[in-house]
């Protein structure tokens, strides 16, 4: 449902959202944010500011205590289970703690995101080989992910998030374990996906990623926005229509 959503409306709309973890840890407080379709947004903030929490709310892994979150115009609080599952299949998430399967091969870890769409094996293979090449993991293709270095695992997580070329990508600290050169490579991948029409939110501490580029950056500060929605010089990419894998 995401790729058919009109390009001139915000894809992610967060309105006055508060998230409190039991018993009384306020992770987000009265947050509002809207992300346009086709935007690439940086989410920054100190450790513990609530970046991960915000991303989890967007992909429905956590529920807000107050407020409304709309993805492509749909209120997440009112979505049925099958619709949430469908939404997740259209959202690629690179988790901060990777969530990869240590016993499974790199290939299978990436393939799992496409298999849930019943994608044909040939298509899966082509896409994975492409991603492994970009992320310099081709030689680790058939090795169990648990036997990789942390940086290599992080790239597997990124590859899985990008595998289906989803309309919405959430990347949580995607370069925390990567060297500067590899970080650039990853950033290049995200930019290419963004040009293809994907809306991308990247939570990061890495200044080199967001400095000196045209993308909007929002700064979380103890669960609130420090620099509240200063609307940026954001330009949607020339070809605003999305590409979906199948």
């Amino acid at each position, binding site marked *: 449902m995401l790729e058919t959503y009109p390009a001139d409306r915000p894809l992610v709309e967060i309105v006055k959202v508060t998230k409190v973890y039991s018993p009384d840890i306020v992770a987000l407080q009265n947050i509002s944010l809207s992300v346009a379709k086709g935007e690439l947004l940086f989410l920054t903030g100190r450790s513990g500011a609530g970046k991960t929490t915000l991303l989890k709310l967007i*992909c*429905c*892994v956590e529920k807000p205590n107050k407020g409304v979150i709309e993805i492509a115009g749909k209120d997440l609080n009112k979505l049925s*289970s*099958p619709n*949430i*599952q*469908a*939404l*997740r*299949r*259209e*959202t690629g*998430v690179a*988790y901060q703690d990777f*969530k*990869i*399967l*240590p*016993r*499974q091969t790199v290939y299978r870890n990436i393939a*799992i*995101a496409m*298999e*849930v769409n*019943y994608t*044909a094996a040939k298509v899966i293979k082509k896409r994975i080989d492409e991603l492994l090449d970009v992320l310099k993991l081709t030689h680790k293709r058939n090795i169990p992910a648990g036997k990789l270095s942390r940086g290599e695992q992080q790239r597997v997580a990124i590859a*899985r998030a990008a595998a289906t070329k989803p309309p919405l990508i959430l990347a949580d600290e995607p370069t925390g374990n990567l060297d500067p050169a590899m970080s650039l490579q990853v950033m290049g991948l995200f930019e290419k996906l963004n040009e293809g029409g994907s809306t991308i939110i990247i939570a990061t501490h890495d200044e080199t990623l967001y400095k000196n580029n045209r993308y909007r950056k929002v700064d979380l500060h103890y669960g609130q926005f420090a620099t509240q929605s200063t609307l940026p010089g954001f330009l949607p990419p020339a070809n605003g229509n999305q590409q979906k894998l199948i």
Partner: protein
Amino acid sequence: MGHETYFYFKQTGRNLQQSWGTQLMTLFTVSMSILIFTFFFLVYTNIIKAGDRFGDELRLIVYLDDEVVPEMRPQIKKKITDYSPVEKIVFVSRDEAFHRLNVQLGQEGDVLNDLGAGFLPPSIEVFPKKDLKNLTLIKQFSDYLTTLPGAQKVQFGQGWVERFGYFTELLRVIVFLSGGLLVMATAFMVSYSIRLTVIEKEAELEVLRLVGARSSYIQTPLLIEGFLQGLLSSGIGLGMLYLIFLWTKTHLSGPGFLHLLDITFFPPVTTGIIMGMSILLCTGGSLVSIRKYLRI
């Protein structure tokens, strides 16, 4: 939808291949549970049956002053059945009575040989209906029979009835207690092994949930797996039970005591029900244990 079916079977194959150790363990556990369970079920049904057979042998003996002439028999029969319907009525002459005592005493019966027949009274044996099992009812019937013309005394193997009652009671207690313990043990075993399997699958289920797998995508391979597991393990369990059954039968079917028990196996219907139940158990168990991964 052929495409989806392909994915389901691929996933099932992958599960079986990846966790064959746990799978084998679960298979073994469940088949052993089924073996244990059916073993006690079989022992119990055979004891019940043996109890019925002993019950068959309950009879009331009416000792008479004199032999009943054949012409009187229908009249006496009528008098008896007027009070209570019976299974069978047998008239025993002096000769038959002597012969029987001889047999009953076994080898020690030799000592009667010098005496010759004729010192035992003739009798009528009344075999009551099956539902007449209660001791007081039997006593009332026995009192009634004393009023028959020419009746000297009525007897029924009171001692034996009681003795057998105690014996089956004891066996029943043993079978019930051990059966109960076993049902608990197997329930534990099966739930433990399912828990271990789920722990092994936990990470994968979590990831599947996060990448938005449909509930059917997660459940179907597990259902197929559970079905196979239930089918195989009940097959193995029942197969092992049958082997034990055959062994017991051939090793204990010598002369003497065992014809009384004459053990038999489950009829095909029961076998089918057992297999169906274990398939239900395996599929249901795995579904229940992963239900939390299907939420949200």
